[in-house]
């Protein structure tokens, strides 16, 4: 260095980087401190509780057999689609509300912010599963007390401990991936719903026109592969292959493209 006056240095020796848990805490707070975020969380909680309570009343009014798994079954299908809205909102609002400018100035290592959002989505998804099971247990208990002859617990442990969390976590990460790819709330929700619901019909229509396409279906249809996870991890090598390929296609690919864009792009 030949400069006459050395440039003043910033003394950063005493400053610790922002720990990851604090970023998670910040992102968690962001998930409920806006109206949209708060009401989404509230609605998910309410629906999960209400659906099962309604089911309980239907059971009490009529005479049929019920189990713990009956309670979780319906609400689980709803959760598969509702919970992914959390990461979609958490990721896309940074761009639609332009808060990314501030967020990435506070933590310029963008990948940590995105991972913190993913962590919050995963934690909230687990919380939803726990809530679902707790409400189901409470409903089964009430049913058991009032109509012990018609109630059986018969808890499906594979579903409770593996199937339900695995499937809900998978769709949550799928929602997260779509959000990272599109960075736009309505577009991400639409793409999520189309992929989840409509792709089966669309692919079936294509297969009807082009028969060889049918062989591809198990490899590219996300919903079928995710739903088989409800019975736990697959055992056959074929099923594994289908699962991995469909997850790579629908989660891995958009996530890679989206992350590449988020990490490199100019934040406006």
């Amino acid at each position, binding site marked *: 260095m030949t400069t006459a006056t050395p*440039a*003043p*240095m*910033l*003394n*950063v020796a005493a*400053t*610790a*980087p*922002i720990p990851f848990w*604090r*970023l998670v*805490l*910040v992102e968690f*707070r*962001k998930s409920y*401190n*806006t*109206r*949209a975020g708060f009401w989404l969380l509230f609605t998910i909680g309410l629906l999960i509780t209400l659906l099962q309570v309604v089911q309980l009343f239907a059971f009490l009014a009529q005479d049929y057999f019920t189990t713990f798994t009956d309670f979780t079954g319906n609400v689980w299908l709803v959760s598969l689609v509702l919970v992914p809205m959390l990461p979609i909102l958490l990721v896309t*609002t940074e761009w639609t*509300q*332009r*808060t990314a*400018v*501030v967020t*990435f*100035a*506070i*933590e*310029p*290592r963008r990948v940590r912010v995105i991972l913190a959002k993913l962590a919050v989505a995963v934690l909230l998804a687990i919380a939803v599963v726990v809530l679902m099971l707790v409400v189901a247990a409470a409903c089964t208990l009430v049913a058991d007390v009032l109509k012990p002859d018609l109630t059986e617990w018969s808890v499906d442990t594979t579903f409770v401990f593996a199937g339900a969390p695995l499937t809900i976590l998978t769709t949550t990460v799928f929602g997260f991936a779509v959000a990272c790819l599109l960075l736009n709330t309505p577009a991400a929700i639409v793409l999520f719903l189309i992929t989840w619901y409509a792709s089966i019909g669309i692919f079936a229509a294509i297969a009807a026109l082009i028969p060889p396409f049918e062989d591809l279906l198990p490899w590219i249809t996300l919903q079928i592969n995710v739903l088989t996870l409800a019975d736990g991890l697959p055992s056959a090598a074929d099923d594994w292959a289908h699962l991995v390929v469909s997850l790579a296609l629908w989660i891995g690919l958009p996530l890679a493209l989206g992350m590449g864009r988020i990490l*490199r792009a*100019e*934040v406006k």
Partner: protein
Amino acid sequence: MISVDHLTKTYGQFRAVDDVSFACQPGTVTGFLGPNGAGKTTTMRVMVGLTPATSGRVTIGGLDYASIPNPGRHVGVLLDASAQHGGRTGREILALGALAMGLPSRRVEEMLALVGLTEDESKRRLRNYSLGMKQRLGIAHALLGDPSVLILDEPANGLDPAGIRWMRGLLKGYADRGGTVLLSSHLLNEVELIADEMILIGQGRIVAQGDKKSLLAGAQGAATSLVTSLDNAGLAAALQQRGHAVEAMGEGLRVNVATEEVGRAALAAGVVLTDLRSGGVGLEDLFLELTSATAREGVHQ
């Protein structure tokens, strides 16, 4: 403290920032001046890593922004006061910043008090804020981590005259305590009074830089005289013959030359002068002159 080194940012063929170099020293306020779209914001965005540079480099205290740990504790940034979630309250926005930076929550109260946002205002959602209130909140957010460097893009935008005076005092005091301030503006008079150093930019290029005195001294070639005589038309012709630009102004003429030369021309032409004085060069004139070639239409005379 802030060092911009041959920074260039292009968007396709368009050079938003073109080989810009300057430095900001601790204890000073640096004014970054230029018309809209001159490249001020892009330069500042590159500084904090939001926009990747095409070539060149910016360091703050010798470091890339991204390698400063917990940068909010060292560098306060306000790039766009509206870039906050409209549904969060002002207080909540500061609380999120304080949480991320690891600051006690009383820091939020201190900053709200510092920028003059009342308890009631702090509980309103941002979408109900006026632009001036957003700017105050943005300044509070920038100062949250007690940084030693401040980077503020158009902070006076939307502030009322009292607010602008308040901000001037705040930044002056901050620099006097050893802080480094870089603030941009497209309005000269916002910056003129507090900036120790000024950088004038137009179409992505630095057109002049220095303190107020040296900027004015450098503009002496552009000295003007204001002259009124009994025969303005005759005097104008005589001056034009000598190769000076003359324009009518009020009751007299404005000539792009020192007073002495006007006196000589009048003497030679035998015209009686009734008033002759130096037009001087205001910073405003200099600013417009330096950037007019590069400014958007409408600024041209």
